[in-house]
């Protein structure tokens, strides 16, 4: 395998940033190199420049991009991760929208949902809140770049690691053990979540259906270059109705990122509220 030059890395990572909005620098570049090595071997390529040429010009490039999404996305997630935000939706956003929810479903988007733990955690909490009993309706759309993760999400079967922040009582109540160590989320929690494929970095692809009251996009923007970050936030601003909420990962911030959002502070977390008319 040929040692990659500065130019090789830049060409490839610029291409990935353009295509997926993701940045790869420092240690992430090393991780990317390690993840790509098996692909280079499988394609009988000698180095990153050849792989770059393959992705840009080879007739099989679209299949390879699809393969690439399985390798470059960080799929780490689990049930009730950063649960304070999920609780904030149930405790604050739901009561605030109680009237609306009797007229139409509260619309929630879980962006970059990976294998579904985030939207399903929310679904569990929303069902448990009993808002349906009071006539409240809600629906969750969930998207990801990686089709394999979406397939896993639709399947709804999870193993040990996914439950590291899920108490035993919830696991027993909401999941059914289908084989030793593998648990299927019960249908009542799955049915309100609709999964779809989306590349959040692609400028013209659609994201979901219509406008949303809540968008969760957690721990994705940390991988985005500044331009991609701004572009995606602008799209979220378009998708959210005025007064809607955007929840980001705890290390992601909209500070100094434009006039569309204002911070809202809850006891254990924060969110951003869409202000002004939709763009």
């Amino acid at each position: 395998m040929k040692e990659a030059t500065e130019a090789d890395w830049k060409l490839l990572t610029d291409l990935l940033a353009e295509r997926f909005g993701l940045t790869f620098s420092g240690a992430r570049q090393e991780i990317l190199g390690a993840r790509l090595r098996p692909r280079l071997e499988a394609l009988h390529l000698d180095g990153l420049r050849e792989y770059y040429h393959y992705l840009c010009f080879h007739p099989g490039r679209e299949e390879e991009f699809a393969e690439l999404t399985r390798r470059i996305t960080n799929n780490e997630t689990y049930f009730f991760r950063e649960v304070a935000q999920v609780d904030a939706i149930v405790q604050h956003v739901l009561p605030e929208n109680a009237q609306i929810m009797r007229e139409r479903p509260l619309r929630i988007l879980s962006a970059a949902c990976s294998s579904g733990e985030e939207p399903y955690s929310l679904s569990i909490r929303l069902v448990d809140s009993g808002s349906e009993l009071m006539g409240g309706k809600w629906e969750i759309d969930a998207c990801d770049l990686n089709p394999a993760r979406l397939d896993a999400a639709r399947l709804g079967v999870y193993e040990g690691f996914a439950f590291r922040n899920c108490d035993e009582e919830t696991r027993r109540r909401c999941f059914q053990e289908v084989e030793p160590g593998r648990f299927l989320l019960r249908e009542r929690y799955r049915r309100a979540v609709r999964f779809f494929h989306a590349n959040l970095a692609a400028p013209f692809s659609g994201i979901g259906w219509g406008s949303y009251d809540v968008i969760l996009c957690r721990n994705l923007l940390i991988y985005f270059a500044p331009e991609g970050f701004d572009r995606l936030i602008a799209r979220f601003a378009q998708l959210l109705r005025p007064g809607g909420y955007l929840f980001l990962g705890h290390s992601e911030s909209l500070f100094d990122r434009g006039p569309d959002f204002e911070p809202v502070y809850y006891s254990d977390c924060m969110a951003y509220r869409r202000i002004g008319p939709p763009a």
Partner: protein
Amino acid sequence: MTSAPTPLASRLATLDRPEDHPEREQLILQSLGDHSPQVREVAIAWAARVLEPAALIPLVADAGDALLRNAALAALERQGPYAMEAVERAVSAPDTDLAMFACQVLGSIGGGSSGAPLLSALGRSEVNVIQAAAEALGCLRWRQAVPALVGLLEQEPWLQLAAADALGAIGDPQAAKPLLALVPDTMIAEPALEALVRIASPEALPQLLTLLMDPRNARLRGPLLRAAGASLGAEEARAAGGGSHTPASPGRRASHAAYDLTAVGRAIEADHGETSLWQFLAERLGGGEEPPAPPSTHESGDDRSQSRSGSSTLRAAAVLVLAGGITSLLPLLVRWAEERDSRAWVEPLVRRYPERVVSVAGSLLAHPDPAVRAGALWTLPPAAVGADQLRAALEDSIPAVRVAACRGIGVIGDSVAAKRLAALLDSGSAAERAAAAEALTRLPQESQLAFLAPRLAPSTDEAVLLAVLAALAASPCPVLDERVLHLVGAVTGPVRRGAIRAAAMIPGPRAEVLLLRALADRDPGLQVEALDLLVGRGGERVGTTLLAMLGIGDSLRYHVIRALGRLGRAEAVAPLETLFTSAPLHERIEILTALARLGGVAAREFLRQCLDQAQPEIRRVAAQGLAALAEPDDLDLLGQLARDRDWVLRSEAAQALGRLGPGRARPVLLDLVRDLEPAVARTARAALAER
């Protein structure tokens, strides 16, 4: 009245082409202090490109605007060697801040010529400047600074800290003794030990061991152990004549009769108490976590930084256990070898002290922990274990132990165990199948014929057959060649693939013909694999066949073009050039890459002509090829590439100039160092550093 700030996009757009701006310098200087990081980043790139260091240095002295100062520093760092002379002069400036920042910039540029001015800065009176100079000398690893840095070890703690870190980075053994004098009772005992880890001086070993054995120094055990382990490793390497794997004689070291490692080992073995050194070593070997060492100001990607990681504590503990013969801890050590990744460091280490492990082989192989049994089998010389013990291990209840035993049986070639190996091949786990097959290929021919030949049949269970073929691809057995060649025509793809891999190891025309036929296999992946294997074998017929295949316009041609480049056959140049005009873009790119591999006058001329093409990627690949083929006489061509509007071409020029290294290229590289594209600038900087 102040005017409203220009919107960000507009400010960025203005900076987009400052060369067209009537007051270019003013615009850049103003933008260096812009409140937006995005604007500043662009301005820094332009400042590095078009402003002289003399224009930037006064900004560094301006204490009134931190944004502007930091941006100017970043621009100077980016100019690198181009700014070096001017920054070196700034080191002696009367302004304290300017001198300090100049030292920092020189440290980050890293040019050897900066050593002298930095050394003179150590004689200044301001602590900040001295500290920055010491840190920069560490970055430069400038050995002449060692005496002056040692002198700083007697100054105030901030300077001691900077000096210790710099001395560690430089790695000169002269510094070992003064650093040891700071251990254990000073504030910087730990940084001093971390420096000693990096210095790895055998001369420091006796004192380090004495300190390590002293229970009063328990809080420093981690760094003391790492420093002792590094020193011991360096001494072993020296004793072995520079790092060979000659077994070391345990116990008393020839070079340091003042201490006896066996006695050290006995002393450690004597106390297994809760707070004892034995317990500390046991925890490290058992995988116990230790707080990471403090970060250094000289972080780098080399193994020096690696040596400060937790794993270096584990390795140091392992060295001490082996060198001191601490038998009771050997199980904890050898169990690491059970895991493949760890085996890479455990095996060579144990091989240096074979008698330590061999003397307790019986107890290790009978250990209740299967990881210890497996680890022992991986680390002990199989001959020392003996056929009886290895055969017994083949019957172990744990698969990992049986796998390790297979490998030992293979090494000693024990045909008595062949039947058991065959049984593991037929019914063991995947790892056992692979290990058993590999062992069987190493047994005498009679065993191969008796146990492998019958399994090389299409009717054999596919998992077994594939394991045998994989073993034969790694270690051919001539008595089985006929059967392997027969399987190249197998029905299932995986078996055909396994068979062509094994067949590629068989010399002679029959195997070659079968591999050539595999180029037309119904599985496209297998075609490409066959092509790779053929190229690896080389040969007249392969080249001729591949040239003929250029006329076939299917998806394999892309790989054929690449293969012709790798084969290095000069007669391929003309047909490839002919194909270029009609080939699709992805093949044209590969044709140019192949021509660059083939070289020669015609190929170079063709690549040169391609620089005039409109398609950017064609120009890039042609430039890449020309840069790879460039010779010292090609400076004009490389200069042309260095001035190209496309950054990739400029980067190729920098890469080639770094490889060629003629002095005449320095002005070109100094220009590229200030390139707006950071990747080009970094390549040029690395090229200049290679001189």
